[in-house]
């Protein structure tokens, strides 16, 4: 359960071909503040992993390193066979087609309609896609999140939950193999939060995605997590299922479930 036992497995060199993300010995610091301090982690195909940790513990930094928005000081991040810190811009863009990222603030482009927001990643990656195909893909993604009627609306006209769904639709439009969720239910009421959590599960089943979910919302964690990783002091402190960690006697682990 604890990081030490997890590290032993790595020392034995267990390489699971089912792994879609494999992180080894990851270090990241901002000045004197060491955020990640030798973090190790694996994500398997079809798995939803929730990363729990205190605010400022480096959870968002971790997924930003995975997508290549931040460059770690040391360590390897193997995503679908590519070591992210070593990729050049072109290869990074190719890798990002397979990895979706749902931002905490949704990051919908304010000046564009919902349709234009969804078309934006499409037009960049699938240049030869016809207008009709693009329209079909946009409508399919919006239908999957239950919002086909918002296609010509501006993001400012949508509620918080709708914006989150549209952001998820934009993430799904390139049909990624992996989705990184940065606090997907933050700022939403409990009912909408539950709807988004259920939607994430539907997405996992329908698209067969593997996901890393950063969350503080224990209700969301309960619904979506196949496995939970607890990040403390820049290390993978503990890992296990919701029930295993909830019943843990370790004080540091227990505090997340109280």
């Amino acid at each position, binding site marked *: 359960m604890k990081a030490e036992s997890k590290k032993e497995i790595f020392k034995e060199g267990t390489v699971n071909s089912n792994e879609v993300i494999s992180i080894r010995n990851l270090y990241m610091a901002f000045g004197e503040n060491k955020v990640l301090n030798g973090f190790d982690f694996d994500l398997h195909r079809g798995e939803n992993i929730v990363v729990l940790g205190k605010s400022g513990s480096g959870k968002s930094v971790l997924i930003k390193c995975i997508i290549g928005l931040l460059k770690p000081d040391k360590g390897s991040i193997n995503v679908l066979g590519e070591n992210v810190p070593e990729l050049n811009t072109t290869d990074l863009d190719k890798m990002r087609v397979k990895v979706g990222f749902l931002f905490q603030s949704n*990051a919908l482009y304010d000046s564009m309609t919902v349709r234009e927001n969804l078309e934006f990643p499409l037009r960049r990656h699938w240049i030869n896609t016809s207008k009709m195909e693009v329209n079909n893909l946009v409508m399919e993604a919006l239908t999957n999140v239950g919002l086909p009627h918002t296609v010509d609306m501006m993001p400012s006209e949508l509620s918080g939950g709708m914006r989150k769904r549209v952001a998820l639709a934009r993430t799904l439009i390139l049909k990624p193999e992996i989705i990184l969720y940065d606090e997907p239910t933050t700022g939403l009421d409990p009912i909408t939060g539950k709807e988004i959590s259920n939607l994430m599960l539907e997405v996992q089943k329908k698209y067969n995605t593997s996901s890393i979910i950063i969350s503080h919302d224990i209700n969301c964690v309960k619904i979506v997590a196949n496995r939970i990783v607890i990040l403390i002091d820049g290390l993978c402190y503990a890992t296990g299922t919701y029930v295993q960690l909830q019943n843990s006697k370790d004080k540091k682990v227990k505090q997340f479930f109280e």
Partner: protein
Amino acid sequence: MKDIIIEIGLITKFAGRFFREIIKPRFEFAEFARQCYYIGNRSLPLVAITAFIMGLVITIQSRPTLVEFGAQAWLPKMVSVSLVREIAPVITALICAGKIGSGIGAELGSMKVTEQIDAMDVSGTNPYKFLVVTRVMATTFMIPILAILADTLSLYGGYLGANIRGVVSWDLYWSQVFDTLVYSDIVPSVTKTFFFGFAIGIIGCYKGFNSNKGTEGVGQSANSAVVISSLLVFILDLLAVQITDVLNLN
């Protein structure tokens, strides 16, 4: 002083990246056209009204002095040179620094703090190319067009001003204006507006792109974009005057 030197260095580095990115494919034509429309079309009424009023006011205020010397017949000649060479381009640039510079600074600043720039990066689009190159190109091309329009409208204002107190016929006014204005008045005046446009675009983008501290930072970006780009307009204007003087174009 150290901070100012560091800031100048960072702005220079940011501007240097513009020249590297502009030659790389792919060029965002649609976004460039959209920015030209916003920057040009939306600034048009303000620039047009201000230029017309400036022409009117300068002519009305210059008239008494010229009358004192019995040189009121020189009024069209005098105002046309000062309007075309200096007043219209600088006023246009200052309006654009306020309107466009602050707009770009605030827009990119808010995109930065709401992670929209990161989202663009993640979706495989180079945000510098999509946001900065297109906006800087648009300001560089649209501000000279606005300045030419301001030149023309300020001369119309001058005609009205000349006729409020005195009587100058339409034909006489324009023949005097065109007799006075030569290429060495117009070409340097229009040329410097390309530099004004570039400076306004690059400063607005730099401030927005490097915005932080949440919504407070967005306001600061917009504010400092206006202050620095207005200051740069005056510095560039001073340089332009010196260069035209050295090249004997005055």
